[in-house]
């Protein structure tokens, strides 16, 4: 008695995509069905013809114009940004979400402090924080004392901005004519476990989102950070 077999099943057999028992069943069936066996053999020959025909293409070196395209096409700024921010991103962090708008507000109630000066509806950095924002270079590494500078970048309005971490606060400040304007300030993320703190700078979600929303291009590298500082920040 003959078993009907579809071309889909034979195709999956040819490609080794059937479950092991089904592969065995079809192989046994082919032995008893010369017509199907001939079709399968013909297809195997077609496959090897196709592969052989294209072998020259895969064996020869790619044309220069393709190598140049891979070498010279700039990668997307958003990818660079994500790559730069990766050390500060917790696992599974989802990009900009609904929290963005809320995150642009000052995240905590400020206590009176010389580090933060409220004036004309703005909060300016003062004291040691302002000094650190103006002079410290993240590329020099953290000196273990006071303010830790994170990343520096140019924002969409053309101002230089820097993230910082100081005394339980993490924030973003952008340089304007009247000084460093605090764009966002948040309490520093609590480390899970309490006793352990990561050595690298930590950014809260709201600070990260503020950076993502404002940044033009990619963060400054060490040379750009130093150059910006030396000319007095824009």
């Amino acid at each position, binding site marked *: 008695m003959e078993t009907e077999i*579809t*071309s*889909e099943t*034979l*195709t*999956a057999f*040819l*490609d080794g*995509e059937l479950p092991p028992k089904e592969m065995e069943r079809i192989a046994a069936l082919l032995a008893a069905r010369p017509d199907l066996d001939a*079709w399968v053999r*013909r*297809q195997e020959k*077609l*496959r090897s*013809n*196709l*592969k*052989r*025909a*294209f*072998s*020259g*293409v*895969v*064996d*020869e070196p*790619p*044309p220069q*114009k*393709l*190598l140049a*395209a*891979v*070498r010279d*096409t*700039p*990668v*997307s700024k*958003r*990818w*660079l*940004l*994500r*790559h730069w921010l990766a050390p500060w991103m917790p696992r599974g962090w989802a990009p900009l979400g609904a929290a963005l708008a809320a995150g642009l507000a000052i995240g905590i109630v400020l206590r009176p402090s010389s580090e933060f000066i409220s004036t004309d509806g703005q909060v300016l950095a003062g004291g040691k924080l302002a000094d650190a924002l103006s002079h410290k270079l993240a590329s020099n590494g953290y000196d273990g004392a006071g303010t830790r500078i994170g990343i520096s970048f140019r924002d969409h309005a053309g101002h230089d901005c820097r993230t910082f971490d100081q005394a339980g606060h993490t924030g973003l400040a952008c340089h304007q004519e009247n000084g460093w304007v605090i764009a966002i300030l948040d309490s520093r993320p609590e480390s899970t476990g309490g006793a352990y703190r990561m050595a690298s700078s930590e950014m809260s979600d709201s600070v990260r989102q503020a950076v993502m929303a404002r940044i033009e291009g990619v963060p400054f590298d060490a040379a750009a950070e130093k150059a910006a500082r030396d000319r007095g920040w824009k």
Partner: protein
Amino acid sequence: MDASADTIRAQMVQLLPRLRRFAIALTGSPADGDDLVQDTVERALRSLHQWEPGTRLDNWLFRIAKNRFIDGRRSHRRSSSVIMEAPEEAAAAYTDGIRATEAHLALKDVVHSLQNLPIEQREALALVVIEGMSYRDASDILGIPIGTLTSRIARAREALADLMPED
């Protein structure tokens, strides 16, 4: 310099031969195939943020190539009165540009035959039979269920058996 971007570029260079093979199978000519690969890698790098690290870079590139090919045909059909290059001309253009060795002559015949297949069969056949991809990877790249992919490969195989000469 960005080490990770360099790593991705290096991986792309490694993938160029396979992308070229796929693109030539789709377009029907090495010149058009290389244009498609160039378009693909430029597009990929410029939208690299859309690639999810940890997922297959090769599958992502093949998907872009397939989509760019389809998009290119659509815009070509909309905007141009130029008739699509006939398969014979496409294959001839290939052999004009290179040494007409036996393998290349075989490629001419194969390219000719492939161009007679509907696009959806051609892309399925190219990924599974020529590239040797699993059904899972191919269906992922083409965005179709495995059952649909299997049918397309089966149709393509039947048609090719009629089109290609026995030797």
